[in-house]
């Protein structure tokens, strides 16, 4: 393990107890490293376990959840063993989260400036006056005009994009080493999404932090992430650089996600291809490869139905959890679309 690894998640497993005494495994043996300064994307559908992974790292899950695994190493310290007060000091100061819905993630009764300043007051013991001044600077940094006036306003006086910028300002107030952005732009208009994304990326570079970007949208990942982990039914199904995932994908699920994306070089004659079926229930996960009921390549009398998949190395730094990954070499979205017609 090199020294520039900031966060190392090893075999993370998160189960939720159900009311009837059963268990649901939302995250099943996920491992990944985040290096200083990089953007690591976690991609998957709703229920694939990507948000639960983030919440498990932060220790924010309800008590009905059981988080175990070999470790969540933060700069060498195992967060799974950390005490509650250590976790509280770590949250916001060293690892900060940006939530999906800025409409509800800001407290309606306090001014925006005060909520941002509060970060500095609790983590850095800043004086009220200093916190206020810094809050205005931060609002300015995330591109909010008239920051000093805006700081005295309440969240409902902000537009959606401005609220998400304010959330970003809150998250970066203490210059955390790692930002976890959980679908940071999903709740915003498409035009505003791009602006907020630009701000997020600029700020990340400015404070030199790493970022875990959680999203269901591979389109968002393309221009921003260094490495990508694709999750399905609580497991990592493909891991690689962004180029690996986009141009050399070796997993039918990733290919399916790519095929469902509109492309700028579309000549107007290509149809978007949705992935058929629905994400599996985590209570009754399909046998073998969890994706086989929806997979166009699956062999229903082969290992796809029979054997659990493991991540196999298919290239330098590129792993795929598909029994047929060797056969997928050279398969592209275009050839998939062509093959179906």
């Amino acid at each position, binding site marked *: 393990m090199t020294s520039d690894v900031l966060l190392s998640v090893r075999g993370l497993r998160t189960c939720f107890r159900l009311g009837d005494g059963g268990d649901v495994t939302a995250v099943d043996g996920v491992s990944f490293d985040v290096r200083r300064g990089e953007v690591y994307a976690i991609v998957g559908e709703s229920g694939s376990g990507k948000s639960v992974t983030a919440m498990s790292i932060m220790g924010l899950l309800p008590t009905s959840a059981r988080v175990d695994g070999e470790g969540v190493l933060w700069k060498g310290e195992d967060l799974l063993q950390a005490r509650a007060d250590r976790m509280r*000091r*770590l949250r916001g100061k060293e690892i*900060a*989260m940006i939530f999906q819905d800025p409409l509800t993630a800001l407290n*309606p009764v306090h001014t925006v400036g*005060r909520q941002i300043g509060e970060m500095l007051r609790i983590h850095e013991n800043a004086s009220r006056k200093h916190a206020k001044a810094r809050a205005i600077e931060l609002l300015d940094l995330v591109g909010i005009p008239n920051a000093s006036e805006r700081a005295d306003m309440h969240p409902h006086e902000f537009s959606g994009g401005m609220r998400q910028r304010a959330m970003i300002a809150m998250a970066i107030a203490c210059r955390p080493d790692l930002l976890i952005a959980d679908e940071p732009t999903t709740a915003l208009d498409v035009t505003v999404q791009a602006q907020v994304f630009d701000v997020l990326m600029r700020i990340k570079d400015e404070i030199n932090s790493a970022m875990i970007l959680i999203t269901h949208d591979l389109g968002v990942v393309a221009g921003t992430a260094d490495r990508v982990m694709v999750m399905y039914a609580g497991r990592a199904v493909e891991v690689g650089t962004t180029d690996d995932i986009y141009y050399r994908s070796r997993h039918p699920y990733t290919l399916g996600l790519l095929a469902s994306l509109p492309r700028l070089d579309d000549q107007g004659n290509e149809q978007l291809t949705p992935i058929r079926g629905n994400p599996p229930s985590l209570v009754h996960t399909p046998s073998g490869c969890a994706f086989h009921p929806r997979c166009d390549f699956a062999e229903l009398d082969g290992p796809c139905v029979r054997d659990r998949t493991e991540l196999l190395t298919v290239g330098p730094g590129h792993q795929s959890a598909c029994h047929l990954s060797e056969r997928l070499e050279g398969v592209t979205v275009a050839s998939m679309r062509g093959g179906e017609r």
Partner: protein
Amino acid sequence: MTLVESTEHDGVPLGDHAAGDVRRRFLRDKAAVVGLAFIALLLVLAVFGPWLAPEGLEERNIGQYRDGPSAEHWFGTDDVGRDVFSQVIHGARVSMKVGLLATAIELLIGVSLGAIAGYFGGWLDSLLMRVTDVGLSIPYLVLAVSIAAIYGRNENSVILVLGLTGWLGIIRIVRSSFLALKEREFAEAARSLGFSHARIIFRHLLPNALQPVIVYGTISIGAVVLSEAALSFLNVGAVRPTASWGLMISEAGSGSLANAPHMLFFPGLAITLTVLAFVFVGDGLRDALDPKLRGRE
């Protein structure tokens, strides 16, 4: 107190910049405005009563027993010659003291425990709710007699009794608010940014839960005034030389209805108007604070 600090910091109750809207809607409610004016009068009487009343607390008019209303004694005199008008004014102090202090105790206990129960949930919530159930099953008169027996018959015992029983209603209101609020994303965001439980409860969630508490608390002051009168009437409340409206009714006795109705009527009227005033103001606040009527979002 955290509660006051967090709401006053922004200079606006409930942290709401729309305080102007709330005030305007409240002022449109005539009954509430009249109620508020009456409460203001009561507070003035409670503070300055001894200087405003024509006659002192223990001043007696020899020979003028149970006289009806006259130019000299507007509300008449009682059976030892005290001016009833002056006594009603002196009585405002006890009523306001008991009403405000008992309600303060109610709110302090009810809001804290309700917030803890709703926020943390689990066994703590179950425990606090069972305690509440037990509390509700104890008749407060029994408690009142017991406490009066221990601490003596005075208004402090009354404050204690009413304060220690009144929170049972508030805890449920606050708990249910917190059950909903803690699931809101800003509570989760606050935790993800490293805020402590205490800070989240008192500075982030409580201001969002204050509206029903304010309304309940206001109406509760009126209810406490009524209970104080009832306890004094039953001789487990204030005793002479304190002037209390309930005590005055009690002293008037059953015979006065026929031969000295003014001894019953005026303290009774004071109680009724006080309770009504607080109910009107509470109702007015409920309407004025109702988010459905707010001109935002």
